[in-house]
């Protein structure tokens, strides 16, 4: 738009001219016909789901497992208090009467809990090892691969562009 014509600039006409240029370049092969689609796909790939690192809860997992291992089932937790007159005594008598059976059940539960704890311990060791390998090796290798691909793409685009000012 020359200076003396700028005041009469018709933006709509200019826009039509720009659109015509786009069509002309496509028709002449000066720009690839699918360049927009290619750019869209490229960006869609970049925004695609990326693998996430394992949640940073290893310390909490260890602490929870230690709490579980320390847990003791005991009759001492029994609370005989009652709001009914004489209720406390009645509860204590019942507790005494079934003490042997209760202790037997508690011992079984304690033994079962030890087995459960052992299983959880083994599982958590496996999961922690896998997560550690995944975080420090697999993800890092994926990042390295993506970096390599990015460098290759950048080089290809630079080659396609040719020497500056050409």
């Amino acid at each position, binding site marked *: *738009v*020359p*200076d003396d*014509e*700028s*005041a009469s*600039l*018709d*933006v*709509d006409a*200019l*826009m039509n001219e*720009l*659109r015509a*240029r*786009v069509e002309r*370049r*496509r028709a002449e092969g*000066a*720009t690839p016909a699918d*360049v*927009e689609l290619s*750019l*869209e796909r*490229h*960006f869609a790939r*970049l*925004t695609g789901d*990326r693998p996430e690192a394992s949640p940073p809860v290893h310390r909490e997992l260890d602490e929870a497992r230690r709490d579980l291992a320390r847990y003791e089932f005991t009759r001492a937790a029994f609370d005989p208090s009652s709001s009914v007159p004489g209720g406390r005594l009645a509860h204590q008598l019942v507790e005494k009467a079934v003490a042997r059976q209760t202790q037997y059940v508690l011992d079984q539960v304690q033994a079962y809990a030890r087995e459960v704890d052992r299983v959880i311990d083994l599982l958590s060791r496996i999961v922690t090892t896998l997560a550690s390998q995944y975080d420090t090796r697999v993800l890092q290798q994926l990042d390295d691969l993506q970096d390599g*691909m*990015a460098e290759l*793409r*950048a*080089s290809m*685009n*630079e080659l*396609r*562009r040719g020497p500056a*000012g050409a």
Partner: protein
Amino acid sequence: VTQPGVIQIVADATPADAATALALELRDLYGMAGQSAVHVIDRAPGVLRVSAADVIVYHVAPVPERCVDQLAGTSAPIVVVHHGAHGDRALLEQLTEWSTRTRTAIGTSTAALAELRAAGFDAARRGAAALDARRWRAIEPDPATRHHLGVALDGPILLAIGPFRTQCGMERLVGAMHIAQTYLRASCHLVLLGAEPDAAYVRALREQIRELNLPSVHAVGAVTAGELRAYVDGACGLVVPDGAGAEAGRVLDAMGAGLPVVARRSSSDLARDGALLALPDDAGADLYAEAITELVSNAPLRRELARRGDARAAVHDAKAAAAAYLTAVLEVA
């Protein structure tokens, strides 16, 4: 706010963001009648001190639901201000949910108004950019940024302003720069300014810039008002992709600062009278590339667009535009 007043809720505030600027302008307006404050929500929920006697003006944004849970749960009356969803389904769904909470809503563009009505706000009204169009000129430019631009960036500079989040369309501008430089031999810089609330999107955008090997595209991120002014002074144009949010305010800001604007036609009512290089709504990266190339290589075009934009900004009446926002608050108070 210790006494009842108007509390505006804004997401991802940044000086370059027109939604933030509108909230600050309205804060002063509401402040003339009583207590007025702006509360910024980020990626994580904050504690919002609000009483039933307050009025909340929520500038709807695509933030995680947990950030606005407390807001939705208050009994205070709410006015929704919508800056445009641009195809963001989650935001449109959020709007529909808000329509069951309040009936009072304002759309800051024709497209935003249509989205509000589609979401169930039958009585939604149109609110123009209640901004001082000359506000960028009043800011003192940051000397360090000005110096940096002078020595580090050789050639014309175009600006694009965020916030950068999914649906903002910045990847289209990056694609346009790839086409302009690879096939049209254009030589210019594109500087991306603004908050980066969507880390995954920004990471993909930076990766795109790197893989396309575009050292002339600079993802700067959030800037201060002084830095923004320095970039505006050093730039030869503003390019607005679709869906960047609050475009009308940003276009007005640029016009008021004498910056030529390239934008989609529907992104701003200011596209009338040839005041900006208005691209059709289906404009893709290739047409943006042509427009960018034309703008940076055609000085008379830039001068004329700047002159028309400046004239358009000169007749902008911020007070009249603010009336809709004041009326909405009075209605629900």
